[in-house]
């Protein structure tokens, strides 16, 4: 099994440990990841606010490149990239008019998108292609003692009904519970963290993140597990500010699901980039006995 891999800009920067741990996990499971040659930014939420057609064309360049490469599934770990690439594909499928325009733009760059690429999230691949049982079979240790708040974030399950429920997804809960961790009650699992509002309207965003942290901590989580680079930064890096602003005392680690999974699969902390997290994950992880 081999997938094409679209890391996205965040995974070269603030979410470097997501990139490292994703490669480590796929490596440990023996599943190939081939980075898409010369990928460009997907446009995120911001390009769309400036020009729709151009934004779609820029994003479609990646799909066109992936299409040339044998039409394998394209794995996009960043929630924004995943949503934008998926949305581009769906828009172009639904509207022949848009498709024609975008093709016209891509033709200038000598490309054409043949609607032949499936955009996938790594969580989807792990749970549905590889399978929870296969992952559990490859596990080197159990995640006893981990009580995690499964934080999916808003964009991987919406807006189009994707691989799990758009409001109350369960696949990540199932995956880690099979590995011995305990998912705490966390009704805010797909609630928005505010994303780029942390830059543009911090007072709004801090409030959203405070609610998330409250919900996780009050329900007894000792870590938050997320799938999204924006969520990870917002929820982890601003805890100090939130403590000061709202008189709280949050100090809860926020890790990518691939980091936690990597621990179960026996990858080293270095491989998983755990030293890059601002709040270290300190959970006793006993080795499994048979």
């Amino acid at each position: 099994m081999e997938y094409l891999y679209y890391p996205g800009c965040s995974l070269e920067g603030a979410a470097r440990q997501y990139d490292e741990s994703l490669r480590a996990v796929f490596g440990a499971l023996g599943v190939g990841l081939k980075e898409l040659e010369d990928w460009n930014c997907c446009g995120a939420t911001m390009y769309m606010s400036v020009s729709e057609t151009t934004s779609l064309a820029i994003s479609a360049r990646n799909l066109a490149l992936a299409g040339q490469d044998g039409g394998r599934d394209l794995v996009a770990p960043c929630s924004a990239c995943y949503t934008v690439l998926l949305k581009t594909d769906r828009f172009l499928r639904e509207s022949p008019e848009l498709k024609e325009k975008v093709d016209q733009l891509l033709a200038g760059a000598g490309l054409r998108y043949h609607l032949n690429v499936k955009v996938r999230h790594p969580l989807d691949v792990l749970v549905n292609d590889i399978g929870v049982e296969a992952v559990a079979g490859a596990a080197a240790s159990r995640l006893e003692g981990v009580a995690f708040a499964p934080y999916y974030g808003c964009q991987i399950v919406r807006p189009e009904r994707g691989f799990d429920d758009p409001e109350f997804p369960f696949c990540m809960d199932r995956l880690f519970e099979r590995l011995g961790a305990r998912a705490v009650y966390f009704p805010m699992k797909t609630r928005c963290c505010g994303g780029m509002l942390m830059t543009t309207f911090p007072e709004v965003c801090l409030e959203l993140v405070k609610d998330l942290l409250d919900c996780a901590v009050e329900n007894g989580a000792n870590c938050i597990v997320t799938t999204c680079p924006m969520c990870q930064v917002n929820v982890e890096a601003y805890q100090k500010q939130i403590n000061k602003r709202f008189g709280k005392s949050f100090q809860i680690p926020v890790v990518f699901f691939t980091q936690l999974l990597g621990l179960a699969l026996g990858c080293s902390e270095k491989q998983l980039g755990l030293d890059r997290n601002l709040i270290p994950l300190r959970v006793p992880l006993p080795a499994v006995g048979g």
Partner: protein
Amino acid sequence: MKNGNRIPGLLPPSEWQLRRKFLEQAELVPGGERISRCLQCGTCTGSCPVSYAMDISPRKVIALFRAGQIEEILRSRTIWICASCYMCTTRCPQHIKITDLLYALKRTAMDTGLYPDRFPVYLLSRNFVRLVNRYGRNNELLLMLLYHLRRNPLELLRSLPLAVQMYKKGRISLWPTQIKGVGAIRKILEASKALELPREKEEIEYAAGMVGYRAVGQLPPAPAD
């Protein structure tokens, strides 16, 4: 609202132009025409995690659009506060693509310049687009520098401790990565400039009564589903 007393059913010319711009943008959204199905149930507002910080709720945005007051929507904070989490779109019983319509409103506002100067989201988006056009990828550090320098340089000082912390953890890349195919991006941009020249649009007679559903009806009819 600044037009004073209005003749019921008659739109002022400025509003009519804005409406046409918005409808052009909304046409680009597959399923955009479903805006005419709104029941005003308020599910969108109730589901929105940031509606508490908006001056006009998402439900009211559609109500104002119907009432022929787009200018009021464009001047609000609402369209810029949306973080595009798509909860409203997921829950809307009429399957209206509210998030995508808010994008259409953002584009209308940008095209017509109807937003305050140095407005945060506008600034951030513009700089983001500039970086992507130049390098093919975004660089978080450069984006923050460009944004804060223009908006409020003091903010740079305030975010310095966090930036240093992130840098020490190897989570900030100092130089933007330029992709090899940046020429291709340029070509796409040039082609799109040509494509986005003002289209010769069929002139629609400016007439009384073009508010509410009749004005909405200027969009292509919804496919039966």
